[in-house]
């Protein structure tokens, strides 16, 4: 385990070179076919989604992605999903349910896209609908926080039977900068805010919000990806043994007991 401070982990999670959804899809999923669009309005670049095989198992994968080059980052609006992104994700989760495929979500975003157009097209409604419908998806869901898990925009892909985090990823109700601004009217105190928010993988494991931490220390991206792949594969085997009702109950109860 690394001994980075909370804010160093925030920096690592946001790191310019940090692998996001696109990397894990590319390196974990065989025969991946990307599927576009929400069949309502548009196709969101901040969410890559599709189908393929994971160790021979047909799966649906949905990943947040910000892109590598500046052009790509603009196209993917820096990995902040629009309502269309969440609706695309939900559409493909329903599709996975129909064909009885496990669903894997990779989460890494500073938050849902913030803009006039997103509000006009119901950013709040889109996230709410995902939380609500994901509670009823009759297929295994595994959510992985790979970068910054930014508030409701991250949770909208996070209602899983299993939720795990990479060691240096973070997951928080508000950004440390936002918190510091509210608390001390000083965004430069973000490091202190990161401490009080308890947003590291280790904190969340302690709160029973996540089941598993995937080690990162001294490992290459390839090794991390391979370990994560093994974890997901094993959990899919376990979850596939459950009946549809057991899957729903396990997911409901997992969240039901938080803050009881």
């Amino acid at each position, binding site marked *: 385990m690394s001994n980075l401070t909370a804010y160093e982990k925030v920096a690592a999670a946001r790191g310019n070179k940090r692998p996001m959804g696109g990397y894990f899809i590319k390196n974990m999923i065989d025969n991946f076919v990307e599927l576009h669009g929400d069949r309502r309005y548009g196709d969101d670049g901040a969410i890559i989604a599709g189908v393929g095989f994971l160790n021979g198992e047909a799966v649906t994968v949905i990943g947040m992605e910000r892109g590598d080059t500046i052009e790509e980052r603009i196209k993917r609006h820096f990995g902040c999903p629009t309502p269309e992104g969440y609706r695309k994700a939900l559409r493909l989760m329903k599709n996975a349910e129909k064909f009885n495929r496990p669903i894997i979500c990779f989460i890494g975003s500073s938050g*849902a896209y*913030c*803009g*006039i157009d*997103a*509000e*006009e*097209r*119901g*950013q*709040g*409604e889109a*996230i*709410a*609908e995902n*939380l*609500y*419908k994901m*509670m*009823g998806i009759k297929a295994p869901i595994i959510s992985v926080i790979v970068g910054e898990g930014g*508030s*409701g925009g991250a*949770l*909208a892909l*996070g*209602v899983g039977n299993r939720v795990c985090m990479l060691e240096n990823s973070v*997951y*928080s*109700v*508000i950004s440390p900068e936002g*918190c510091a601004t*509210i*608390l001390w009217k000083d965004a430069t105190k973000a490091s202190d805010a990161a401490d*009080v*928010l*308890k*947003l590291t993988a280790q*904190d*969340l494991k302690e*709160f029973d*919000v996540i089941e598993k931490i995937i080690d990162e220390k001294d490992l290459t991206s390839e090794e991390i990806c391979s370990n994560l792949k093994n974890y997901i594969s094993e959990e899919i085997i376990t979850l596939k043994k459950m009946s549809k009702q057991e899957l729903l109950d396990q*997911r*409901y109860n997992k*969240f*039901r007991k*938080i*803050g*009881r």
Partner: protein
Amino acid sequence: MSLKDFFKGLFGKESKEPRICKKCNEEIKYSDLKANHIICPNCNAYMRMNAFERLEAICDDETFSPIDEELTSKNILNFPEYDEKLEKAKKATGLNEAVVCGTCNIEGKKTAIFVMDSAFMMASMGSVVGEKLTRLFEKATAEKLPVVGFVTSGGARMQEGIISLMQMAKVSGAVKRHSDSGLLYIPVLTDPTTGGITASFGMLGDIIIAEPNALIGFAGARVIEQTTGEKLPKGFQRAEFLLEHGFIDAIVERKDLKDTLSNLLAIHTIA
């Protein structure tokens, strides 16, 4: 239990102090406000109702029965200034938390009801608000009751960190189980309803009602302006804006709310 008795226990007394209208800055006598549904008689601004006023306006006399009123928040993260904020909010409102839950009759129809009070830490949702709402929906599911909810909130409660965020999923799950049982849920969105509440149970009603001019949105208007540099259109994130964009069913004036809810409950009565 009589509402007055219930709230006397909480407030010690009914608040009858004059209030200042934030829109026209006029100081309004409480009796004038009360006679006008807590709407400013000077400029017609909808002023924020406290939990007591809301319940009194909606519940039939002597029918409100509180649930889990004793539940109170703990400072689970040891978050700075949270204990003080909670104490201050309790003192100011007489409430133990930002939501009051219970059952009541609305024109004779038994209903589960929740009312959020923005005077309690902007009615932000921490674990107790999430737990009380979840228990209310679970009870309504077990007892086959509709749920009517008066929603106002600044969003998830920062002071409880990730636990607050998870309440969005928890409550949404309970709303879903209630809905799957064929039961009616009507949120009434009031000023202001923002952030994680718009992105969870605020937007999950079978029928979503809003009060005129209520601020309803996900991202904060100032944040949007700063992030995008765009000028916000007139009426942005107001109830009328949401109606125009298809995200709420109806805007109902305060004086008509009880009749409208009663009518909708009657239409949805399970034979």
